[in-house]
């Protein structure tokens, strides 16, 4: 049963005893040495983690984290302090610490917050986790364990985990912002080891989003395909068995076809990070100054969309209390815009795209992605494969990384095949692909009509902060890319 409370703010006001009066006092203290802007970020997170391993429930843990981060902006300067003690003494002390960034006369505080109702909810909100729910979560991973073992006798090790959290946030700011949200997040992961007489291989899969448990019960939910534990278990097992027979990946420059869904991590690394406004304001990104320029083939349109219901990267509002939106990053190959937050949009004189996110109250918000994906093209996926004489077909990836200053990015394939004479042939071992962000997408020559988003297990790291994100794309052909194998 899911209930959407009429107002998420109540939790902080009623449960934690944080009054509007106290919030105003803290903001007053935060601006006591001048400063252009101050905000309070209250956060309460409860998380549960369950793990099955060797068919035994070996791990179960729960955590509670509550605190407040206080930020003061003064020109380009940011002062920040946080406290996990929400007493008025500690909050006011944190406000005074953050205030040290500014040096001037106290700022007159606005009177009263803008009383906004909560944004339309993109996700359900569960109540407190009951014992019955824990048993149901355990049942999910037990099913995954069973299905992975049943898939093939060569599966020798299975681990499955279920992690979920409920994050309540409230932002009160000197510009009148007074906004709150309650964000669920759940994921199921399966990790297996396969062994035959000669080789050992690993395989993993998983799924989730800002969803409650019924998501995993529905085997054909939202037309998005199977979300059952059995599905993820079979996927992990299939990948591992496939890898047992994989040959060396090729080495060198060649055409690369990326399958739909998770391979969209290409966009996240090749262009996404480079388009975050902080790097562009500081001109430390390889994309700085390229707005309006051609950075990709005309077949390429890339958006960042935080409004997709239930998606892992979606948010009703960002961690500065701004509404989330869909932002066009690249349109028909032309660079259109950046992802921005309050600080950077003000300093750059550009629109705020509601992209200010942070890992927790310990962290300062910065421009981040939500769900980043490429829009559909006209090509049939099978025609794309047929067009390649010799190349790589990569359908699944591990992580990626980018150096935003020189634009070089990598992403590591975990499931890939050779394409020989227009046909997908043998599976190859994992290999890292490398390219240059502002150049790589110029080699996109075909874009499929089969857009898919990932399964909902992606986490993005930037400057030591992790946030949940989504990626996606249709089948795409890049005429050339460097593949880091060891074979011919």
């Amino acid at each position, binding site marked *: 049963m899911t209930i959407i409370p009429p107002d998420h703010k109540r939790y902080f006001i009623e449960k934690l005893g944080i009054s509007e009066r106290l919030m105003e006092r803290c903001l007053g203290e935060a601006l006591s040495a001048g400063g252009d802007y101050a905000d309070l970020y209250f956060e309460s997170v409860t998380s549960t983690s369950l793990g099955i391993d060797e068919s035994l429930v070996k791990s179960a843990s729960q955590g509670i984290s509550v605190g407040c981060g206080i930020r003061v902006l003064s020109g380009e300067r940011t002062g920040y302090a946080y406290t996990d003690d929400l007493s008025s003494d500690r909050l006011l002390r944190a406000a005074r610490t953050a205030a040290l960034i500014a040096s001037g006369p106290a700022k007159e505080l606005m009177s009263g917050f803008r009383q906004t109702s909560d944004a339309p909810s993109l996700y359900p909100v569960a109540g407190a986790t009951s014992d019955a729910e824990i048993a149901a979560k355990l049942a999910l991973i037990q099913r995954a364990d069973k299905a992975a073992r049943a898939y093939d006798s060569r599966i020798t090790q299975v681990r499955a985990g279920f992690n979920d959290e409920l994050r309540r946030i409230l932002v009160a700011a000197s510009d009148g912002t007074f906004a709150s949200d309650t964000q669920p997040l759940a994921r199921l992961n399966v990790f297996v080891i396969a062994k035959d007489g000669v080789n050992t291989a690993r395989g993993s899969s998983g799924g989730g989003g800002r969803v409650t448990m019924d998501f995993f019960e529905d085997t054909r939910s939202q037309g998005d395909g199977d979300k059952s534990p059995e599905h993820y278990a079979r996927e992990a097992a299939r990948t591992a068995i496939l890898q047992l027979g994989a040959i060396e990946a090729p080495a060198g420059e060649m055409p690369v076809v990326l399958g739909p869904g998770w391979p969209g991590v290409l966009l996240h690394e090749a262009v996404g990070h480079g388009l975050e406004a902080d790097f562009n304001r500081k001109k430390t990104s390889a994309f700085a100054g390229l707005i309006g320029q051609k950075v990709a083939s005309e077949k390429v349109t890339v958006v960042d969309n935080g409004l997709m219901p239930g998606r892992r990267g979606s948010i009703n509002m960002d961690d500065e209390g701004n509404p989330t939106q869909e932002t066009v990053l690249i349109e028909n190959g032309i660079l259109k815009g950046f992802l921005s937050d309050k600080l950077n949009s003000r300093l750059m004189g550009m629109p705020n795209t509601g992209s200010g996110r942070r890992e927790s109250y310990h962290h*300062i918000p910065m421009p981040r992605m939500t769900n980043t994906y490429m829009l559909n093209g006209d090509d049939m996926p099978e025609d794309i494969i047929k067009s390649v004489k010799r190349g790589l077909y990569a359908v699944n990836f591990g992580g990626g990384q980018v150096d935003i200053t020189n634009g070089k990015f990598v992403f590591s394939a975990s499931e890939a095949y050779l394409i020989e004479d227009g046909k997908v042939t043998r599976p190859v071992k994992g290999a890292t692909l490398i390219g240059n962000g502002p150049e790589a997408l110029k080699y996109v020559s075909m874009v499929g009509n089969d857009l898919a988003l990932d399964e909902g297990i992606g986490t993005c790291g930037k400057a030591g902060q992790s946030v949940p994100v989504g990626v996606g794309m249709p089948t795409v052909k890049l005429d050339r890319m460097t593949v880091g194998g060891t074979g011919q």
Partner: protein
Amino acid sequence: MSQSAPVVSSDLKQLASEVLAKALKAGATDAEAVVYEGDEFSALVRLGQVETLKESGSRAVGLRVFIASGNAQRTASTSSSDFSAESIARLVEGAVTLARITSEDPFAGLPEAHEFGQIDEDQHLYFEDVNQMPPAERIEIARRTEAAAMAYDARIQNSGGGDFDTSTSHKILMNSRGFIGEYRRSYCGFSAAPIAHDENGNMQRNYWYSSARTTRKLENPEAIGHEAARRTLKRLGARQVKTQKAPVVFSPEIARSIIGNIFDAANGDAIYRNASFFSGLLGEQVAGENITVIDDGTIVFGGKDSGKDSSDIKTGGFGTRPFDGEGLPTRRTVLVERGILKNYVMNTYTARKLNMHSTGNASRGLAGNPGIGAGNFFLEAGTLTPDEIIGDIKSGLYVTETMGFGVNLVTGDYSQGASGMWIENGEIAYPVEEITIAGNLKDMYRNIVGIGNDLVFRGASAAPTIRIEGMTIAGA
């Protein structure tokens, strides 16, 4: 400066002992509490102006409980940043309730009472000066470091900034089998990240840093800034090379990550699952005879002479601590000796699974079962200078940076993005980028044909320059 007998935070100890008592009362047959308290400060200066100042403290408590049933145990854990009585009650009740739904596992449980212990000598982990340095001085070091980098060369006109960070932490571990231990650690460090551009407007970034347990052991800000600038300028004008096989030399920063994979491959957790390319190879040759790799959680540097020079101040390594995450004394473990795999690295659970003994490598977060973590982990130095290693190569790659997640510890397959310098006729010729290097760690460890004499601990793990034969370089 170093405090051998840290100030006892009796309230935190009392909290840990209360949590344990409550857990036992609630039905746990064994319990372990960890209480953590920490302070952090960071300052970022960019283009000479303070951009970010952050200062805060935090604390948290974690509880792990066991419920015995015959020879087996069930276990679960909880954590909280809220120390109120109501929250502590929930922490205890939650852990015991969760434990009841977990499986009985004959390998689970706290270590045996006779295994507990800690290093008694002062490990020189905590220095009060880290907290005493006035913020203005810290900001000034960040500013000087960035300024030195920017002044070094006209091609450096932008910067990611200069920073100065400090942190101190206090950890208490207590369990129902009688172990009580605590330690404090301090850290301080600064860095600069200059950005250089070439005549075509192409940009490159690099950085350099100094870090220490006491401000007295930090290096000179100008020297660090200049080194950051040199490392950045070296990357300008980088190009791809053709796909080929060639000798690859790894700088110490990258060598330490390749050697670090030896720790991961010898991790008892991966070993008992047969999920490591080292599984079943104890006592076997896994690397060249020139390779000796050690994990040592007890290293204290310095103090050789009279103690008048700052370099003579004794300081514990970044991987040094008196006891591990389960209350076992830290120790020195030789993983690989002259190429032979001598030891796996284990915590109590994985040691029981393997019918061996823990190597004191348990790592404990706030919640969850203990993992396995390294102390100070390193490859023993060789005799060659880095110049001698490079000087011996007609045509090859010198790697100064890798990118990506292309290391598979199940198979040993290795494929990473790379950048660095091309070596021609024994000399550095030009910078390269947008290439990958690939091989298999099983072969790579056997094909380390040169080991440098430049072993320096800049972090918890370290390796000298190494040269590896037989890797594939993919490029244009």
